[in-house]
């Protein structure tokens, strides 16, 4: 099995050489294999979201090596980093991050706009994913009128629209009740069984209870344990 993510001696320092200097990630070395379901576990402020941002090429590390799908993500200029994010990654967030003033269908389509995909294809693809997450009948509902569980399922559909091989999720169940959390994890497990690699930053115990073959990585104060 090849490594999807390879991290070597990764450091991230915010505002270096100032009084506000903060060492957010310290000498992190890790790797994640293709097809793994992996969780980054730690309390809030431990650096798990930061590490996720770095892996998603949203944040540039101060030093160290980071390769995602053999791409030197940390050194990519914006154009390539964005294309990379779009083609390989799907992001899922704690507070869903939908556009409230957009409908479900429009929200799902936004991720496809920069690709210049044809309107009809965009719509078919979005409807396909909405039926997968059981939201097809709500496609014209505004996102602000959805329940928490529906919001997260809509966000998952948006993350999947480009067929990503890696899903990065930041506390996806933190704002959901138990039933909806299980629902989300079921979807993620199903995706994992189809071959998608999944990395979740969370402190929720429910993942350990529900997901078989889970790879748990502990993080504390910017260091892996």
């Amino acid at each position, binding site marked *: 099995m090849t490594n999807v993510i390879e991290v070597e001696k990764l450091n991230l320092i915010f505002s270096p050489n100032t009084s506000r200097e903060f060492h957010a990630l310290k000498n992190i070395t890790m790797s994640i294999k293709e097809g793994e379901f992996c969780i980054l576990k730690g309390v809030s402020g431990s650096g798990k*979201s930061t590490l996720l941002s770095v892996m998603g090429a*949203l*944040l540039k590390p101060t030093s160290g090596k980071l390769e995602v799908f053999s791409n030197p993500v940390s050194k990519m200029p*914006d*154009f390539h980093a964005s294309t990379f994010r*779009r083609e390989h990654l799907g992001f899922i*967030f704690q507070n869903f*991050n939908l*556009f409230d*003033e957009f409908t479900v269908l429009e929200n799902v389509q936004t991720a496809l706009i920069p690709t210049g995909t044809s309107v009809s294809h965009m719509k078919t693809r979005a409807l396909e994913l909405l039926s997968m997450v059981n939201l097809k009948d709500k496609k014209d509902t505004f996102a602000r009128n959805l329940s928490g569980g529906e919001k997260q399922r809509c966000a998952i559909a948006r993350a999947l629209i480009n067929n990503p091989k890696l899903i990065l999720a930041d506390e996806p169940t933190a704002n959901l009740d138990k039933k909806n959390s299980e629902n989300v994890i079921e979807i993620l497990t199903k995706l994992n069984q189809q071959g998608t690699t999944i990395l979740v930053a969370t402190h929720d115990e429910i993942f350990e209870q529900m997901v078989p073959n889970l790879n748990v990585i502990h993080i504390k104060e910017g260091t892996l344990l």
Partner: protein
Amino acid sequence: MNFFKFASLTLVRNLSKNIIVFIFFTLFIFIASSFIFTASSLQNSLDAELETQPDIIVQYKKASRNHPIDTSIIDEISDIPGVEKVYERIFGYYFFDTANKYINVLGIDFLDDEQEKQIKHLYKNFDLKSFLQEDNMLVSSSVKKLLEQYYYEKFFNFIVEDEEPKKVNIYGVFDKKINLFLNDSVIMEMAMAKDILGYEENEASEIAIIVPNKLEIDNIVQKLLVITPTSKIITKNNMYKYSHELYDYKGGIFLSLFITSFLGFLVIFYSQASSINGAGKKQIGILRAIGWSINDIIKWKMSEAVIVSFVSFLSGVLLSYVYIFLFKNNIFVSIFLGSENVYKDIILEPFFDINSFVILFFITIIPYLASTLHPAWKSSIADPTEAIK
């Protein structure tokens, strides 16, 4: 969905935030475009009016003021080869003391074909015979209104130097359409006009010359200078040039003022647009996380600006078209035509001058877009981790 669709959705769904910019922009376009419509319509009517004017006009000036010109040179001018017709013209302001207003008195030789032709289109079913039987005049609707205010319903008494007041009957009111240039005028028989304006019988306001072959005009002007070296000679071309220059000049001044105030609007807009709030930052963070590049964000923001400016532009122009050409006596006419001598009764002829709107486009949309470049870029580089925090 593409960037334009997305931009239009973000604009419409956040209407309350964008409506202020839209309203102000539309208002600016409305004012500028009303000015342009008024100016170009007046210019166009003036051009049409000039078309009916004689080819050469000879005036006598003293200290740069118009003085009566001696009509004895008419025969001499008629002898110049290439000249088809020469005739005298009488006009001048009569001061209506009680009302403190000026009335423009035009004298016409009704027996002359050329001049009668000009009058015919002013008044339908004009009966020359009955008109000339008594002391009659034709008045504009504004003058009619003015005279009625002072209870002159059927006639008017002109006060003439060293004579009894001259009583002239109001024969009729001429057509509204041509009021633009005859708004404050009355038209009467030539001898009577001379009497009222204090001209001698052998004097005229100016001498008009008609030249069928336009290429001959310069030659004839040379010969006129020999006949009357002290006269001022105006060709039709001079008149066009002068009127165009006047309007262009007024227009230029207005544009400069407009640009200055528009810049003020842009500064306010710019400072508002370049401060991105938390929600805005978050929105951009989300888009960046789902794969939008810096350039994609810029494209979206610029599409928004393009939509706002084009929609405002079109609605401003449309509103002003309706206001200027469908409503009577709009304020822009007063601004353009200056002092209120007599009450204005004017409807502008619709006229659309493309060049002026290209100019308006350049001085509004380009600076507006220019002022959005920096805010668009600034929001595009907002911290993309904002979505994860």
